[in-house]
C-alpha cells in the first residue's frame, strides 16, 4: 500500500473544499455566524468524512458500480446519525444551534464528492488521509469565516466581547450575505497568494 501525505496536505490548502472546490457552502452559510457553532460543525464534518472515506474505500471492491451511489449515501447517513446522537449526548447546546444542518451533512456534496472521486478508487490509508485533510480544510475555512463574521457582526469571539461597548455591529455580517462577502474576499486572497508564489 502506497501512502502519500500529499493527500492530507492538498485538502487543507491547494484543494481546500471551500476556497477551491467551492463545495459544502450551504452549511457554511448557515452556521458560520458563530465561532462555537462552526467548530462543532467542523468536527462533525471531519468525523463523518473520515469515517465515510474509510468505509467506502474498505468496501470499494465488493460494490458494483451501478449501486455505488445508494451504498455511499447509506454509509454517509450512518456516520451522520452516529454524530447526531453523540453530539446530542455531549453538547446539547451546539446540537441545538446546528439544528437541521447537522442531519443535512448527509447531502453535503463534499462528503459524497470525496467518496465518489477519491475513496472509491484509492486504498484505505490514503482515503483516510484524504478525508482528514479535506475535513480539516473545511474546518479551518469555516473557523476563519466565522471569526471574521462574529467579530464584525456581533463584536464578540466565542461569546466574549472583543470590540468596545460602543461598537455598532456590522449586522449584514451575521446574516447569510455576510458569509458570501467573506468567502469572496478570502478566495481572492488565496488566489493572490498562489499567483505570487508562481511568479517567484
Amino acid at each position: 500500500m502506497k501512502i502519500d501525505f500529499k493527500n492530507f496536505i492538498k485538502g487543507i490548502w491547494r484543494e481546500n473544499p471551500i476556497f477551491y472546490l467551492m463545495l459544502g457552502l450551504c452549511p457554511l452559510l448557515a452556521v458560520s455566524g458563530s465561532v462555537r457553532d462552526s467548530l462543532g460543525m467542523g468536527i462533525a464534518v471531519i468525523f463523518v468524512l473520515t469515517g465515510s472515506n474509510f468505509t467506502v474505500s474498505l468496501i470499494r471492491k465488493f460494490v458494483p458500480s451501478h449501486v455505488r451511489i445508494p451504498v455511499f449515501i447509506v454509509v454517509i447517513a450512518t456516520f451522520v446519525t452516529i454524530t447526531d446522537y453523540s453530539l446530542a449526548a455531549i453538547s446539547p447546546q451546539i446540537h441545538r444551534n446546528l439544528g437541521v444542518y447537522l442531519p443535512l451533512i448527509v447531502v453535503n456534496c463534499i462528503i459524497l464528492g470525496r467518496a465518489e472521486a477519491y475513496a472509491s478508487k484509492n486504498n484505505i490509508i490514503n482515503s483516510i488521509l484524504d478525508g482528514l485533510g479535506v475535513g480539516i480544510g473545511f474546518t479551518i475555512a469555516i473557523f476563519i469565516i466565522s471569526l471574521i463574521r462574529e467579530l464584525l457582526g456581533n463584536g464578540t469571539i466565542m461569546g466574549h466581547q472583543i470590540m468596545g461597548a460602543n461598537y455598532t455591529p456590522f449586522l449584514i455580517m451575521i446574516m447569510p450575505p455576510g458569509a458570501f462577502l467573506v468567502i469572496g474576499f478570502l478566495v481572492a486572497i488565496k488566489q493572490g497568494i498562489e499567483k505570487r508564489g508562481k511568479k517567484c
Partner: protein
Amino acid sequence: MKKKEIIGGVLILTIITALSGYLLAQVYKTTKPAIEKQKKIEEEKVNRGIFPDGVEFIEKEENGVKYFSVLNSKKEEIGKIFTTSSLGYGGYIKIKVGIDKNGKIKGIKILQHNETPGLGAKITEDKFLSQFKGKTAEELYLKKDKSEGRIDAITGATISSRAVTDGVRKLLEKINKKEVRSEN
C-alpha cells in the same frame, strides 16, 4: 444489464443497509441515557435560572397543561413554571415563564426563536428579559403600545419584543383566571 448483476447489486445494498441499521440501533441504545440526562440537566438549569431559590422542580399536568411546580427547601410551593409560544417575526418564539405565588412574573427565558440575528435575536438578552420581573398582567404591554405598559421594546425589533410581551401576558391572564375560578 445482466440478471446476475442486478441480483448482486440488490444483495450488496441490502447487506450494507442491514449492517448500518444494526449499528445505529446499538449507537441509539448507548447514547439514549446520556441524551436524556443532558436534557434534564438543561431543563433544570433553565428552571433554576428563573427560580434561584427553588430546590425542587416537579413536573405536573393540569387540564392538559404541563408545568413545573417549584418547591423551596421547606417543601412549600413558591411558584410555577409554564412554557408558552408566541408568533414573532421569524416564526414561533418558545418562552419559559416563571410565575410566583402572587400571580406576578418571577422571570422568563427564551427557549427557542428564529428572529433576525442582531435585532430580534436580542430578546434572549438579560437586558430585555429582566424587565419582566415582578410585573403583573396589566403592566405587560410595550410602553409605546399602552400607557400602563412597563416594557421597553428593543430598538429595531418591535415585532419580536411585542410577541414576547404579548405571549407572556396572555399566559399570565389565562393562569390567573383559572386560579380565581378554582378558589371560588
